[in-house]
């Protein structure tokens, strides 16, 4: 935490701004004050109005009421160019680089390029970018297309782009959500934020990670239901206080206590010994019925690939057995044997935006909803009844089950991916990032659902980058590094430190991998 911004006059003030979309009040009297050089956290559950507020600052939406004051004068931000002229820069949640352009090319998009005669001057372009990069990310590759940068490098490339001209305010929407928490890249980003602050550039960031908020921010603003319900200095509040403001109630959900559960039965449900994905990836796994195994690792460690391999969506060499029977036949074969999969990327891999919520819920087992058992004609009534049941059980908040899942908030989209598997026996659940970008309330509900699935006797593997979630959810943790399982931690040795150490390639303390459960460190 820096002390910048303390006692200084705010240069940016949002006073009672509102913005309605039809009948939906996305913002309904939100206030925000940011001082020069201040690191300010904007927190709130999904749907609290954070993204809308940022869109007002970036000129993508216009406020329906209230005022935006810059240096004390009312400012009208008509579009991205107006925001740019005010010195506002935006690092959006979906990275907005041109994948084919390198760092230099991306940094200059939308700016007047240096010219030599009538043509752009690549050498001058590169020199300017190199000068900016030298300050914040000296080892960032400048000539590599963004498509081939790591997520952390892409983010640095975006920040370099933001700082090409003098910036007064850099807005970051969930800057570390695509980075592993333990990863050096997240720490690197924090260092850059502090550096910006010291040099007088204010940083406004949205985060669902309260640890990050407490560690990084000077000031905070909490939004709930489109209103500012609290604001102040971070040093004057604690996590529980923030959670109370965000949820409007006592902090019960956020601390995620490990639920008291019956011990797993000890019967092996899933056993696998497979080579998969990138060369050298190999895993030996045994998971008991009713056990929740957390899968942790840095970005690129092979968590998602392992889950996809178990799901039959990636080529696999080796054997996978579920309750003693070989798992085969790709995803359809897995489903038939009682396995389910929740992908990491909701929009790309999770659902079909062109189908309704109800149809998406029924998608994975359409053959269960037939008018006549042998005829592949979907029974709409049954599909709707199923969707209503699932919606009730998961407390799905949707305008209509006939609308597109794209209209749902992130948390409700995630519930939909769980909901499609309900109502049939589950023997194996493969879950990739159960709650990324999901608000605190929905997170607790999803964790409850995962525990119910395990309690019904299923083996559960949940991959997550969120170490709090890992510690709260998992009975046992497998840590991956370089496509291999390098640690198998449970009981007393299952500590944050051990998990992080293993993920970074250090041997886990006092607990060598068991030959049967984890592949040897290469």
């Amino acid at each position, binding site marked *: 935490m820096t002390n910048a911004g303390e006692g200084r006059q705010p240069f940016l003030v949002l006073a009672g701004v509102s913005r309605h979309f039809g009948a939906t009040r996305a913002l309904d009297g939100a206030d925000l004050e940011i001082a020069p050089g201040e690191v300010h956290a904007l927190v709130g559950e999904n749907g609290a109005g954070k993204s809308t507020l940022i869109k007002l600052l970036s000129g993508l939406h216009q406020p329906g009421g209230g005022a935006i004051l810059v240096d004390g004068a009312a400012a009208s931000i008509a579009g991205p160019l107006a925001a*740019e002229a005010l010195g506002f820069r935006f690092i959006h949640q979906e990275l907005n680089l041109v994948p084919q352009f390198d760092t230099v090319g991306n940094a200059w*998009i939308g700016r007047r390029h240096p010219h030599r005669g009538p043509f752009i001057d690549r050498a001058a372009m590169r020199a300017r970018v190199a000068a900016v990069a030298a300050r914040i990310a000296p080892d960032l590759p400048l000539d590599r297309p963004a498509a081939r940068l790591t997520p952390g490098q892409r983010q640095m490339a975006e920040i370099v782009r933001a700082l090409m001209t003098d910036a007064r305010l850099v807005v970051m929407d969930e800057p570390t959500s695509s980075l592993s928490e333990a990863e050096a890249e997240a720490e690197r980003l924090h260092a850059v934020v502090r550096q910006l602050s010291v040099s007088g550039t204010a940083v406004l960031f949205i985060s669902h990670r309260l640890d990050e908020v407490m560690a990084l921010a000077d000031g905070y603003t909490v939004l709930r239901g489109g209103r500012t319900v609290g604001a102040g200095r971070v040093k004057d509040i604690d996590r529980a206080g923030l959670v109370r403001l965000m949820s409007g109630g006592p902090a019960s959900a956020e601390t995620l206590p490990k639920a008291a559960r019956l011990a797993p039965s000890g019967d092996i449900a899933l056993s696998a010994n497979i080579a998969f994905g990138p060369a050298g990836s190999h895993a030996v796994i045994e998971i008991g019925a009713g056990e929740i195994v957390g899968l942790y690792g840095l970005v690129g460690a092979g968590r998602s690939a392992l889950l996809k391999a178990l799901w039959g969506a990636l080529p696999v060499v080796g054997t996978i057995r579920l309750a003693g029977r070989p798992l085969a036949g790709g995803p359809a074969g897995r489903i038939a044997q009682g396995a389910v999969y929740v992908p990491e990327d909701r929009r790309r891999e999770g659902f079909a935006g062109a189908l309704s919520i109800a149809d998406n819920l029924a998608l994975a087992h359409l053959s269960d909803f037939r008018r006549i058992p042998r005829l592949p004609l979907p029974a709409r009534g049954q599909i709707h009844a199923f969707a209503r049941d699932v919606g009730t059980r998961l407390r799905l908040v949707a305008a209509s089950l006939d609308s597109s899942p794209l209209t749902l908030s992130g948390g409700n989209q995630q519930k939909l991916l769980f909901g499609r598997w309900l109502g049939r026996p589950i023997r194996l659940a493969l879950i990739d990032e159960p709650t990324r970008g999901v608000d605190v309330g929905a997170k607790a509900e999803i964790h409850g659902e995962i525990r119910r699935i395990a309690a019904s006797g299923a083996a559960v593997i949940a991959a997550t980058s969120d170490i709090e979630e890992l510690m709260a959810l998992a009975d046992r943790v497998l840590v991956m590094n370089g496509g291999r399982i390098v640690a198998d931690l449970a009981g007393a040795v299952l500590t944050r430190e051990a998990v992080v150490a293993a993920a970074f390639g250090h041997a886990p303390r006092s607990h060598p991998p068991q030959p049967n459960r984890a592949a040897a460190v290469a």
Partner: protein
Amino acid sequence: MTLLRRYGTLLALALIVAVFAVASPGAFGTVANLVNITQQMSLLAIVAIGATLVMVVGEFDLSVSAVVSFAGIAAVSLFGAGHGIAAVFALVVIAALAMGTVSGFLVARFAVPSFIATLAFGTVIGGLTFWISDGATLFSGIPPAFRDLGRGTVLGLPVPTLWLIGTAVIAWLLLDATEFGRRLYAIGGNREAARLVGLPVRRDMIIAFALSAGLAALAGLLLAARLGSAHPTGGGGYLLSAYAAVFLGMTAFREGEPSVPGTLVGAAIIAVVSNGLTILGVPSFLQDLMTGAIILAAVLVRQLGRAGD
């Protein structure tokens, strides 16, 4: 292997040239014939360069062949009405730019899928062309000076080849060395990002469509000049060949992006295959078969190379 993946299409062109040179000694490989090939590919390549500009922003312009036909018919009709060469050139190109602007506007402003918008608008242009010409081939009233724009040689190079060189150099500099070109690639690479940094996405897309139509009109004018006549469906063959050249070109360089040098390589492959097979006396249906097979092979090699990444 990396070399093959990156320059496979160029190597294929070299291989095809070598095979024809060996198969027909004294005919294919002569300087005169190679120069002739540059002339044969010139109009196709000009149309394909226009298609490349639209492809860079991630869209299709399926109206190019209709514009080629329109330009020829419009030019000969205007000559018949007594207009001079400069006026005819200007009028036809301006009309084509306007047509491209309409296509681009439909796509950029109303988000009509370009496949559909340009297919439909191309059909409209085709109907207009038939209307003007009454469905007939037009050839009267073409001044000899106009014909010289599409035939003969200057400094030993065929005139159409010179048009192609000029077009290619300008388009290549435009795409690779100007801010406008960077913007087009940015729009094609990530349209949302381009919009968020305030690029004039709609305007630039419209300009790309206008330039595509303008180049198609240039090709149509040169075609009429070379043939000394214009037929209302005279440009019909250019659409698929032009896109074949663009797609072949995308396999030739740079991570699969459309580019002017790539499109030139693609057009050259198509022209070389056609020329070489003609010299060998291969019937034309077999030429089509071979050309199609080569395009499929190039794209397939590319995909297999990607899968290995």
